[in-house]
């Protein structure tokens, strides 16, 4: 390559390069989207979604189809922890695209499809070969294939650009994606791949499930794990190649990973995961196509990805089971419950010292017992009220536990003392080591475990410190005397 003289300003323009790269094919193609004469969003939306515009129709349909196939296949990628394989393979297609281009010397979608798929499969084979045949870890193998194949592709591309017939815009489109350029031929390929994905996932559901969950056991059962993996890679390669045109090299892997990761955080069943993943994929695809349709010269891929990213963020925060807020809420609730139970325990101890005679416990008494201020104690008792465990008589400053509260108090104290006894006897802990452990465990022992402990300890009456182990039901009737 003969070096060309350049102005200094160019050396800092890496930044602009991306912009131009994303934009130039769009500029060339803007006319296909139709003349955008109005900036009114609702009018645009109406045009888009009522398919008034043929190229918009194709773009939307194409986006839905690619969302479907990427979502379905991505579901298996995420659970098999192959998320970054999509990224590696999508970069590895470049030499195939160039070779396909060279074959016909024009933009012939089938030639390019075949070339690109062959390159992706070769890439998948190379990853397998490197992982098995050397001690290099899988992520290194992926990185090598990604950049190595891409480099070969760049060499070919730069050689093609020298040719008089080498039309740059053909290659660029595949590198950086543009949904507006989807035509009926491309739709055929997209539909075929989407149909193949749906078929494969339905027919081979159990094989895919078993080999994803426990490949060792699946092989041992006689399932063809290696072939299932290869089949998945073939489908993945095809899906990547047909989606490249709309989304671009870097961002295809996003359409594989993000919808599937969203589904992973929302459900615990595989078939629901696949359905959600496909749904999110289609939604992101449609929104991406729509958003880029809104403005002039906007690339499609990034909008699809950002939509998917937005949905993922919502699931990550608000997911009912695995979302971060849900976990915080659970944690908070647990802390609250533990605090309430500790209050109950203290009240019980106070009552016990008096052998359940002499009326209710007062605030000052409890405060002294717990070594805290009266106000803190009042607050603690106030927390019992919403849970129906106890209440404060404001006139006399006396704490009244409800029957449920007394029962629970007895259970907590019983759990604590049982556990101490168990640790001291069965696990041979020194008696002065058992208290903290029991302080934590007392809140989480379930009834079944308690029964087993009682059996194990021969229904002992006293704990290591000589205090009686309560039998809650008996006590609650005693206290109400």
């Amino acid at each position, binding site marked *: *390559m*003969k*070096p060309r*003289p*350049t102005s*200094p*300003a*160019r*050396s*800092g*323009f*890496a*930044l*602009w*390069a*991306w*912009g*131009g*790269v*994303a*934009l130039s094919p769009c500029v060339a193609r803007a006319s296909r989207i139709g003349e955008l004469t109005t900036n009114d969003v609702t009018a645009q939306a109406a045009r888009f979604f009522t398919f008034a515009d043929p190229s918009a129709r194709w773009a939307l349909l194409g986006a839905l189809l690619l969302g479907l196939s990427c979502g379905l296949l991505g579901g298996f990628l*995420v659970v098999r*922890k192959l*998320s*970054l394989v999509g990224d590696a393979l999508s970069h590895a297609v470049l030499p195939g695209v160039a070779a396909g281009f*060279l074959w016909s010397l024009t933009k012939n979608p089938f030639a390019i499809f075949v070339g690109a798929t062959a390159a992706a499969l070769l890439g998948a084979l190379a990853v397998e070969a490197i992982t098995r045949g050397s*001690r*290099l*870890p899988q*992520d290194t193998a*992926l*990185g*090598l294939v*990604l*950049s*190595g194949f891409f*480099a*070969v592709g*760049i*060499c070919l591309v*730069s*050689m093609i650009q020298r*040719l*008089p017939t080498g039309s740059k815009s053909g290659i*660029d489109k595949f590198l950086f994606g543009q949904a507006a350029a989807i035509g009926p031929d491309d739709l055929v390929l997209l539909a075929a791949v989407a149909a193949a994905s749906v078929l494969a996932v339905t027919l081979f559901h159990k094989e895919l499930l078993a080999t994803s969950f426990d490949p060792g056991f699946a092989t041992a059962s006689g399932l063809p794990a290696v072939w299932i993996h290869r089949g998945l890679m073939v489908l993945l390669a095809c899906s990547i190649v047909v989606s490249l045109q709309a989304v671009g090299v*870097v*961002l295809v892997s*996003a359409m594989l*990973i993000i919808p599937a*990761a969203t589904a992973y*955080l929302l459900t615990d069943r595989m078939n629901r995961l696949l359905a959600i993943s496909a749904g999110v994929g289609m939604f992101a695809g449609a929104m991406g196509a729509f958003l880029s349709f809104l403005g002039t*010269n*906007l*690339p499609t891929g*990034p909008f699809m*990805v*950002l939509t998917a990213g937005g949905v*993922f963020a919502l699931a*990550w925060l608000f997911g009912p089971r695995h979302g*971060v807020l849900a976990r915080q809420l659970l944690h908070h609730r647990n802390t609250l419950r533990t605090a309430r139970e500790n209050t109950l325990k203290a009240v019980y101890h106070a009552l016990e010292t008096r052998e359940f005679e002499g009326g209710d416990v007062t605030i000052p008494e409890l405060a002294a017992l717990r070594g805290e201020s009266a106000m803190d104690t009042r607050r603690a008792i106030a927390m019992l009220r919403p849970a129906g465990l106890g209440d404060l008589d404001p006139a006399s400053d006396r704490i009244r536990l409800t029957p449920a509260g007394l029962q629970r108090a007895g259970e907590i104290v019983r759990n604590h003392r049982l556990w101490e006894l168990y640790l001291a006897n069965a696990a041979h802990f020194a008696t002065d080591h058992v208290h903290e452990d029991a302080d934590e465990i007392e809140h989480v022992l379930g009834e079944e475990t308690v029964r087993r402990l009682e059996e194990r300890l021969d229904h002992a009456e006293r704990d290591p410190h000589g205090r009686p182990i309560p039998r809650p039901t008996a006590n609650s009737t005693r206290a109400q005397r």
Partner: protein
Amino acid sequence: MNALIPPFDPHAVFVVPWTSGLPVFGWVVLMGFLVTALCGIVGNYLILRRMALMGDAISHSVLPGLALAFLAFGSRGIGPMLAGALFAAVVTTGLIELLHRPTRLKPDAATGIVFTCLFAAGVVLISLFADRVDLDQDCVLHGELAQVPFEPFLRMGGMVLGPPSVIRMAAAGAVVLVLVALFYKELLVSSFDAALARCVGIRTGLVHHALMAGVSVLVVFAFQSVGAILVIAMLILPGATSSFLSERLPGRMAWSVMHAAASSVLGLHLALWLDCSIAAAMVVAGCVLFVCAWGVSAVRAALRQRFAGADNGEISGAGVIQGG
């Protein structure tokens, strides 16, 4: 096909670069060597820590960092770009941790989500705010390595030093090497066994973030010369090749440097022959060297098996009892 591959002129390909073309091609090879060698040295740690794809992630997510820096500072100088890149690296690693730590999401999925979203954000930023451009997309795909000799040379105290890219790369490289040497044992222990490192008192979190910052600095400097995606090859190829040639880290570092030198030179010749992008040709040459090293090590292993097989019956009792 004939038009595609130019006629092979041995003189132009092999002789010119080292004689009449030296003032130009010398700098090109030197820059290529510096980028590959420095990235390769740091990349050894990425391979050991199984974070090869963090290099991928950082090189992609540098884009929005650069975009923001440009929008914020309005200039394309090296200072703002570095700031933007470091900011991007910090945000990337932070977000990846944030995503997978508190949930059951796995790190590989988190990595993929973060860098693609950041990259998409970068492209959107650029499309929305910077749409009056005419430029050379080659720069991003595979850098402008060939442009390096034509930058106005830096002058210092009356001495002409060389192209600014090369000087900057060399300076950054020197800093990186010093840091690697200073923190050699911390890097080694935390790469090998993070739990042990924490027991010994090494702040593994700090080491991790410092390594990521170092990678992103190198990526920014290399970005302009070799493009975003080829830089990943520069990070991983030398280390992966050297893994076949040496079992110890110092040995691998040495082999990485040699691999960098060989691939730079061979890449130049390949590019001169095929008239293609120099950086891409250097990576292709590096891949060829990788395959050769792999072949050598496979042959060695096969030979060893054959000779080992001959004394199968003579395994000593002591060896067996010691256990595997």
